[in-house]
């Protein structure tokens, strides 16, 4: 017995080292962003627009822009995605074509985000003539998260036991009543987790808005859905690659990165909490 402990200890040590490396990377990353970013964060930084060629002032328009784009994308994608998942899981007959659609949607979730940017450019910016605008960007981001919302909702719906549906139908509820009163409430935590994760993803995406919505500098706040918009992720990219004051811009980029990471992490932690509570509910 003692003999075979050596390979085991070595193996476990190796696994442990890999785990620590990954955690260390995450913590180092967060530490870097927080320690450098916190110096630049102030009330002024969060509530004012940039001044003096990006060397002074804050990032308020970029924060507002990101909120607009994210909200727009979710308002567009959520009803469509939910309806599509409900249709595929609850209404459509189990056929080959439906299966094909399911596989297609799952695979679309893996298509590179920059390709969605191309879609958005060809369809919303050019074909529909929305131009580079909040509308184009929000629709592009909406299409980007649509597959994710559909497949996570589907998973949540499939996890609801068939017996619940049958019981509901047996006591005389209609199909829609069963879905509304029985299936959706049981699937809610799962659906919610998927939606919250999608919000986090949309808020941090850059490539799809590069040529559909984002601009480096805009005076004041956007006044309609057809105006260009500043957005946090694009702002970080632009600060590092454009402009004429690299040192001062890097500092502002640290501040912007901290705000963005803070936003996205709060959203993800929310999703993790929702899922934990769901597990507890199922156990009891």
């Amino acid at each position, binding site marked *: 017995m003692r003999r075979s402990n050596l390979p*085991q200890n070595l193996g476990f040590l190796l696994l442990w080292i890999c785990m620590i490396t990954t955690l260390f990377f995450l913590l180092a990353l967060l530490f870097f962003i927080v320690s450098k970013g916190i110096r630049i964060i102030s009330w002024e930084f969060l509530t004012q627009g940039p001044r003096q060629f990006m060397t002074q002032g804050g990032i308020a328009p970029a924060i507002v822009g990101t909120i607009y784009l994210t909200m727009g994308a979710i308002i567009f994608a959520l009803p469509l995605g939910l309806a599509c998942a409900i249709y595929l899981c609850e209404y459509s007959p189990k056929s080959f074509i439906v299966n094909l659609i399911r596989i297609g*949607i799952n695979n679309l979730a893996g298509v590179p985000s*920059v390709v969605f940017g191309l879609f958005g450019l060809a*369809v919303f910016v050019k074909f529909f003539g929305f131009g580079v605008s909040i509308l184009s960007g929000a629709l592009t981001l909406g299409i980007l998260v649509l597959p994710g919302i559909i497949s996570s909702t589907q998973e949540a719906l499939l996890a609801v036991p068939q017996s619940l549906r049958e019981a509901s139908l047996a006591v005389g509820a209609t199909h829609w009543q069963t879905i509304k009163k029985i299936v959706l409430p049981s699937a809610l935590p799962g659906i919610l987790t998927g939606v919250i994760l999608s919000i986090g993803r949309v808020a941090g995406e850059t490539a799809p808005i590069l*040529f559909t919505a984002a601009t480096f500098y805009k005076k004041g706040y956007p006044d309609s859905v057809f105006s260009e918009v500043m957005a946090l992720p694009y702002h970080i990219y632009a600060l590092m690659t454009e402009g004429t004051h690299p040192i001062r811009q890097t500092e502002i980029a640290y501040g912007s990165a901290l705000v*963005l990471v803070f936003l996205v992490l709060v959203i993800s932690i929310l999703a993790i909490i929702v899922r*934990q509570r769901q597990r507890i509910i199922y156990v009891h």
Partner: protein
Amino acid sequence: MFRKAKEFIIEKLIQVCGLASIFFVVVIFLFLLKEGLAVFKIVTPLNFLFGKSWYPISDPAQLGILPLICGSLLVTLGAAIISIPIGVACAIYIAEIAPSKTKEVLKAGVELLAAIPSVVLGFIGMVTLVPWVKNIFHLPTGLTALSGSIMLAFMAMPTIVSIAEDALYSVPKSYKEGAFALGATHWQTIHRVMLPAASSGILAAVMLGIGRVIGETMAVMMITGNAAVIPHSLLQPVRTLTATIAAEMGEAVVGSEHYFALFAIGIVLFIISFAINVTADLFLHRENR
């Protein structure tokens, strides 16, 4: 009567919405095809894929994407070499060794890593990793394929870890108990029983991780140096397919050959990611059976 009508309307409404999102996706793919295929009036598909020079705005434009494909492959290969062993090791640690409370924390940690936007990773890579690579290897610039590979490895990690962990978790408990009953140590059980049993799920995890790396745009664009030449080592600047689209689409004139070529690159990316996802799907289903 009223109830029946309501039921009917709601069902149709859901059906319309559901079909609309499918319709959307199809139409949009057709748009991509329409814009992208136009480039093949100018170059043959073979010359486009295997042409060695990418000078889209010279006259006449040279539209060969081989350097870009090589760039993408090199960065992906580097990232795979780093992320596959570490990612699978993390998955084994989380699934098999960590006590259940630590496990929750570790899983949450991996999920947070997945949530960090790629532009932030690119930014941090630019201000930390790039200068380090430059100094350690005494290079003229730290914007190299290696820097990109390292950063992307940690982006692929969460995908690999969570799917591989699922695969290990779904190995029937009886396998493990059987191995223990025969007197195998925990380590022997892991590498002789658990890993082979979960192998197709782990392969799927690796494929999806690689898919994530190939499609990654912002971080790559910021830290790999964007030189459209066929690379000979990891320590050279490269330009990937995704970065080319992101960097050049802003300047391309609508309707020009450059514009169509960028859409054609989009089609290439679409096909690559589709192939990867379908393969991963097959692996996952083989496991289910």
